[in-house]
């Protein structure tokens, strides 16, 4: 079946999706302070300027600390919840799982503000730690979704065989289950890392002005003279996320193939 106009529309749609991202490298290497056509020559100055920006480095470091902590915590919490919901039946399962997944259907601002109001009321000082606390709430549902499908594709008889052969519950988990869901765990870690690294609302409000990359970028775009070096930064970030996501997708597919399952869609 040929469908030229459908194909044309899809290609046009892709171009629309990518258009701002395609402009990133163009203007990041453009030798002009003004971000506009016509282009005026090739330069790597903006990358040099970006690299020399001390505040940017602090923000990047903070973002890395936050994203690594959030990815680790969310994935661990996700393992508990996904394993419990796939393997066991217990009272209160539906409301508990509903509460864990709730941030998916709640505007992020409301999650951030309710937590902020409580933190301010009991006098907890805002810091990177409070940002981590909030972002874990947002990332855990994604971790649970990815890990649930990883645990579901496990063959229950492997686990029973190990138990019959004298392994304990814990050693079965460590020796049989964990290696089999490892690709799912890695995928969850990478997805949570990306979400956290990109997240703005919680970083902005629960971090109370601490330099965090997304907040820093948001602030810099208001100064026209800073825009080109932000575009250079954007180029670097886009390359990073594409590499990370390619890796996550690879791990996810390997996990499904390992467990003998069938590929059923992407990340969402």
């Amino acid at each position, binding site marked *: *079946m040929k*469908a030229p106009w*459908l194909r044309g*529309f*899809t290609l046009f*749609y892709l171009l629309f*999706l*990518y258009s*701002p*991202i395609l402009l*990133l490298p163009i203007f990041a290497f453009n030798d002009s302070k003004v*971000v*506009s*056509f*016509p282009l005026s020559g090739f330069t790597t100055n903006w990358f040099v300027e970006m690299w020399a920006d001390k505040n940017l480095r602090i923000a990047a470091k903070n973002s890395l600390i936050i994203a690594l902590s959030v990815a680790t915590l969310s994935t661990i*919490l*996700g393992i*508990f*919840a996904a394993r*419990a919901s796939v393997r*066991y*039946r*217990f*009272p*209160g*399962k539906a409301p508990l799982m509903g*509460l*864990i997944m709730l*941030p*998916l259907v*709640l*505007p*992020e*601002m*409301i999650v951030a*503000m*309710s937590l902020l*109001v*409580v933190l301010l009321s009991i006098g907890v000082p805002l810091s990177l730690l409070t940002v981590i*606390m909030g972002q874990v*709430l947002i990332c*855990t549902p994604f971790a649970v979704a990815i890990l649930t499908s990883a645990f579901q594709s496990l063959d229950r008889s492997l686990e029973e065989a190990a138990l019959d052969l004298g392994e304990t519950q814990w050693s079965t988990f460590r020796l049989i289950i964990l290696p089999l869901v490892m690709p799912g765990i890695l995928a969850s870690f990478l997805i949570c890392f990306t979400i956290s690294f*990109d997240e*703005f*609302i919680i970083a902005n409000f629960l971090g109370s002005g601490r330099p965090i990359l*997304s907040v820093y*970028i*948001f602030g810099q*775009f208001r100064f026209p003279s800073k*825009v080109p070096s932000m*575009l250079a930064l*954007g180029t670097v970030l*886009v390359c990073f*996320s*594409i590499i990370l996501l390619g890796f996550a*997708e690879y791990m996810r597919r390997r996990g499904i193939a390992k467990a003998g399952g069938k*590929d059923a*869609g*992407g*990340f969402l």
Partner: protein
Amino acid sequence: MAATPRSEARAGLKLISPTAIYVIVLLALPLATVLVYSMMTGGRGNVSLPLTIANYAELWSKPVYGYILLKSLLVALSVTFITVVLAYPVAYFVSFHVKPDRKSLWLFLITIPFWTSYIIRVSLWFVILGYDGILDKALMSLGIMNTQLNFSSYGIPAIIFVLAHAYAPFAVLPIFVSLEKVDRSLLEAGQDLGESRWVTFLRVTLPLSMPGVIAAALIVFIPTVGDYVTPKLVGDGREPMIANFIETALLKLRNYPQGSAFAVVSMLMVGIVSVVFVLLNRRFIGGSK
């Protein structure tokens, strides 16, 4: 090893407890606090008893609150409509016209922009559409316009445009998944029985893919209605939406009760719209049997 229901329940609860405790303390309790605050009195960073519904009465009586809620709702629904209508043909193309082994590649290409920095994407639109931006310069140098278009200052249309771009990839995936489930033999049957391809699409494919369409609508609606960055950047921040207003009430005015009441009403609104979407979905699933 046959576990008794009781020991199974205990094992399950024990396993889920770290995650459950985390969300109860950091999500359920704060939400409950906001609900309680919304029925208290006070201002400038403190709250006091007695419980009252005065805050809700004020929301009802002052038109500005209703205006912000309605505006956010309309912006989010327009964005939802645009993204779903644009995403459907794309999902249809990938599902029906792309070779099976190439499908994941196409989906991957469509989802990549979604995973690249949201802040940078939105800020880039600001650079492109803003005064003297890339679009203005391009239009003027091509001679199409002789004054600055400055689309970014158009307020609501600009917000809708940028949001529709930001959340576009969200909509493709669920529609694609539901299209993949459509039994291809039904389509052949329809055409064998003499229906045109277009009629078959309207009577078979479209109804069967409705669950995906509604899932897509929900996935786009929820983050857009609560979006904070786009209304702040695009349109010079003159058109605040729910999230911006909550910020003003809670952080700038420090009126906890009023801000909380507004947050609760916004949550209710989002909840009601979501339930309507889900009920629509039920009807379609029921009707297709």
